[in-house]
């Protein structure tokens, strides 16, 4: 292999949904089940060769925000890997606090939709590589796609592809694209929308929502053209670990990091 043939590795990213200091996981953003202590979860995923971690805090109250900072800081003490953190981020100060706690990237959904200029300012201040645009979407019964804010509860009259273009213009460095209707269902990613977005934008797309098998991972990269996959249920509820998945993907011809 010549140097020019080397490629950036495709990434597998365990996604930890946090509620009041615990890791939880639901179906279509509902019916949450407790899946453990996030710092312990993170430690295990780190040992199993995960490429990054995503922490999304869905704790409702702002007063309990310190729990998130504490979880990130405790994880950063022993896991020397990249973290993205988000959930309820509304101000430059929120971004700064997460970065100070040890996050490398901050994901924003609702505040970006309500105040696009906030995203622009955050990207200018902290660098675009720090800001991740989180896009939650549903395929509606009429076949059209719409984005959602407020943890999947508020529909916005915007098409996800158009919104991802806007996010790119606002300066985000990555897009975290999550299918609400497939979340937790183990039915596979929304490959059509993932591919449409990944092909259309210039920034990396992290696809999420629906991965329930090894084959779904391979599809996400090969057919969905994603740069990374964020995975919840597959890691939380089955005996698949990041390293097992990496071995499988390598066998499928996907260029992933294995065993480093």
């Amino acid at each position, binding site marked *: 292999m010549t140097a020019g043939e080397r490629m950036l590795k*495709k990434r597998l990213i365990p996604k930890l949904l946090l509620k009041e200091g615990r890791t939880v996981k639901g179906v279509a953003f509902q019916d949450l089940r407790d899946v453990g202590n996030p710092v312990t979860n993170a430690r295990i995923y780190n040992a199993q060769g995960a490429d990054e971690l995503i922490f999304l805090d869905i704790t409702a109250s702002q007063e309990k925000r310190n729990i998130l900072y504490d979880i990130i800081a405790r994880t950063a003490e022993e896991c020397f890997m990249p973290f993205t953190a988000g959930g309820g981020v509304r101000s430059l100060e929120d971004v700064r606090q997460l*970065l100070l706690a040890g996050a*490398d990237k901050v994901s924003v959904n609702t505040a970006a939709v309500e105040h696009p200029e906030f995203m622009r300012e955050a990207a200018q201040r902290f660098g675009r590589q720090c800001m991740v645009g989180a896009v939650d979407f549903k395929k509606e019964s009429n076949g059209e796609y719409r984005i959602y804010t407020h943890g999947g509860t508020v529909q916005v009259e915007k098409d996800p592809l158009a919104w991802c273009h806007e996010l790119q213009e606002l300066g985000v460095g990555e897009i975290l694209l999550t299918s609400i209707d497939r979340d937790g269902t183990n039915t596979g990613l929304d490959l059509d929308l993932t591919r449409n977005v990944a092909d259309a934008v210039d920034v*990396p797309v992290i696809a999420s929502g629906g991965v329930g098998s090894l084959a779904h991972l391979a599809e996400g990269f090969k057919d969905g053209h994603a740069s990374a996959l964020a995975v919840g249920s597959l890691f939380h509820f089955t005996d698949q670990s990041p390293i097992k998945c990496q071995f499988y993907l390598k066998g499928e011809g996907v260029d992933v990091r294995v065993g*480093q």
Partner: protein
Amino acid sequence: MIAIIDYGMGNLLSVLKAFEHLGEEARVIATPAGLAEATHVVLPGVGAFPDAMAALNKNGWVDAMQREVVEGGKPFLGVCLGMQLLAEFGEENVHCPGLAWIRGGVKRFVLNPKQYKVPHVGWNEITPVDDSLLFRGLGPGATFYFVHSYHMICEDTADIAAYCDYGYPFPAAIRRGNIFATQFHPEKSQDNGLKVLENFLAYRGA
């Protein structure tokens, strides 16, 4: 004692914890006076080049680093933006003079976006140059975590300690005497990154 320079840019905690994990005493230093007692100096950084240079200039860091590192010869490690600042100029938003410890500049990736997304985010392989101190003990094909839209261009290729390839080769690490720097984040590159930090600490100066 390892001094980690806090000039208001980026994630210092991870750098601090990584050195502590290696069993070394490390401190985040908020004023240039703190450099005097350091054995090693680390310049991290995430953000925009002009803002970073403004912060370094405003707080007297430029003179203190010149004295301790360039003249005093203390081992120095720049990370990510902390590598790019060593160049003569940066091109982020506006043309801006850098520290000019290393001959060259900083440019945005110019790539076909359909093939290569920018920022360059994720794990990529590097190719160290022969007998590169920072990469001792690491096998071929070692991967490191990168997250950046700009990269350095070195006028003197002898300054380059490792290359990475993303559409074209660019410097992944540099070394000039006691001055080391990495474009990737060793503090975020798991065991490979810790090995690089360990190798840097083993260097005690000329």
